[in-house]
C-alpha cells in the first residue's frame, strides 16, 4: 500500500500513521450521553469504500483524508484534512 500525499507525492505506508474512520464528528459540548457514547465507541466498520484520517508523520506532517477500500486496500482519493492543511492546499 502506498499513499499519494497531496503535498509530497507517492510515499510508502511506513511514513504514515492511522487514526481511523473520518465519519464520527466530535459532539458539541453539552451533547447527550448517547451522542458521546456513539462518537467514542461505536463504529460502522465498513467493508468497502471508507473515508479515514492518516497522518503523514514521515513527510509533511499533514493530516490527510483518504478514501480507501477495506476489502482491497485500494486508495481512490487523498485530500488534505479540514483545517490548516486544506487552507494551505487551496492557496
Amino acid at each position: 500500500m502506498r499513499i499519494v500525499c497531496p503535498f509530497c507525492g507517492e510515499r510508502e505506508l511506513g511514513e504514515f500513521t492511522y487514526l481511523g474512520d473520518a465519519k464520527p464528528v466530535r459532539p458539541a459540548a453539552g451533547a447527550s450521553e448517547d451522542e458521546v457514547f456513539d462518537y467514542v465507541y461505536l463504529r460502522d466498520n465498513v467493508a468497502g469504500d471508507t473515508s479515514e484520517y492518516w497522518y503523514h508523520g514521515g513527510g509533511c506532517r499533514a493530516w490527510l483524508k483518504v478514501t480507501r477500500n477495506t476489502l482491497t486496500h485500494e486508495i481512490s482519493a487523498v485530500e488534505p484534512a479540514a483545517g490548516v492543511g486544506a487552507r494551505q492546499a487551496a492557496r
Partner: protein
Amino acid sequence: MKYSIFSLARAAFSGHKNWQRTWRDASPKDRYDVVIIGGGGHGLATAWFLASEYGIRNVAVLEKGWIGSGNAGRNTTIIRSNYGLPGNTGFYELSMKLWERMEQDLNYNAMVSQRGVVNLYHSDAQRDAYARRGNTMRINGIDAELLDLAAVRKMMPFLNFDNARFPVQGGLLQRRGGTARHDAVVWGYAHAASALGVDIIQNCEVTGFVRDANGKVTGVETSRGRIGAGKVGMAVAGSSSRVAAMAGLRLPIESHVLQAFVSEAIKPLIPNVMTFGAGHFYVSQSDKGGLVFGGDIDGYNSYAQRGNMPVMEDVCEGGMALMPMIGRVRLLRQWGGIMDMSMDGSPIIDKTPVDGLYLNAGWCYGGFKATPGSGLVFAHLLARDESHAEAARFRLDRFRTGAMIDEKGQGAQPNLH
C-alpha cells in the same frame, strides 16, 4: 468413530485406506433450537458444549466457507492464561483448564503441548509489571514464575543477552502455557459435536435475519435457504460488525488485519513460546520445525486478510533483535487474518438488544487460546439466558457503563490494543 490405539492399529493393517470421515457434513433442516453462525473454533466449541453440558442437541453451526477456514486456521496456536485484570484472569484460566482435558473430552488428538510461555523483560519497570502480573496470577491459583537472568540464560542460551538497547533481564514464565494444533482443535470439536447430533453446515452464508412482529430473531436467511431458530448465536470474530449490521446493530469493534509468519523448517531450537518484551514479537516452533511468529496488527481497518510490508519488516526486526542467529533462516509463508478489535481490547459475550440474538465477538488477536472457554461460556449464555460466572464482565454495555477491561490501558483506540 472412536479413536484409540486399537483403531489406529486396525487402520494401519489396512494401509490407512479405511478411515471414516470424522464428522458429518450436514444439509440444513427447517428449524433448530439453536443456530450458531460461524464454523470456527469458537462456534464449534459452543455447539459441543451445548450438546454435551447443556443437553441441547438440536443445534446447527453455519459456516460461510469450510470449517476452520477463517481465523481458526490463521493464528499462531498459542495457549496461555497470564492475564492481569479481573474478568480476564479467571476466564482465561477456565479456558486453560479446558485445554488440559480437551483431548480426553473430545477423543481427538489436538496436540496440546504445555511447553511453557515466557514473556521476557528488559527493564526494571517491566520486571515490576511482570512481577505484579505473576502475583495476580498466583493469587488466582494460576502458575507463574518470575525468572531472573540466570534462569533465562539456562533455558534459552541463544538469546541476544547483550543487546545494548534492550538487554534481556529475565522473564515471566507460565509453565502450563504452550501451543495446540489449531486445525485439530476445529476438527476435534466438529468430531465430538457431530457425534452428539450437531449439524455442521458448510458453504452456508448468512444473508439476513428473520424477525417476527416484535422484532425477535426467529431464524436466518442463508445462501442455502431459510433456517428457523429458537435462538441465534454469532461467533464470527473478524466479521462481527458485518453480521450484526444485518440485525441493525452497530458494535464497539473495528476489523483489523494481523499478519503471521512461518520460516522454513529447522532442527529443534526454541523450547517454548517466548515474547520479546521490548517490541512486539512472539515465536514458537512447530512440530514440523518451522518458526511460527508474529507481532503487531497492521494498524488500519481491513477485511482483506493480507497485510503490508512495514509491519512485516517490524516483526522480523523484533526477531533479529532477540536472536540474531535467525537472520539466515528464510521466511516460508506469511498470511493475514481479520481481527475483531474491540474498544478496550477484551471480548464481548452477551445478549444483544435484539431479542433472540446472542453475541460472541471482540476477541482482538487473542481468540485462539480462548476457544474452549469461549465455547463453554457462550453455550451457558445460550442455554440459560444468563452469563456464566467467568464471563459476567464481558458485557456489551460495559462501554456505556464504564466497566472496561483494558489490559493495555490504551482507551478507545482499537489499533493500539
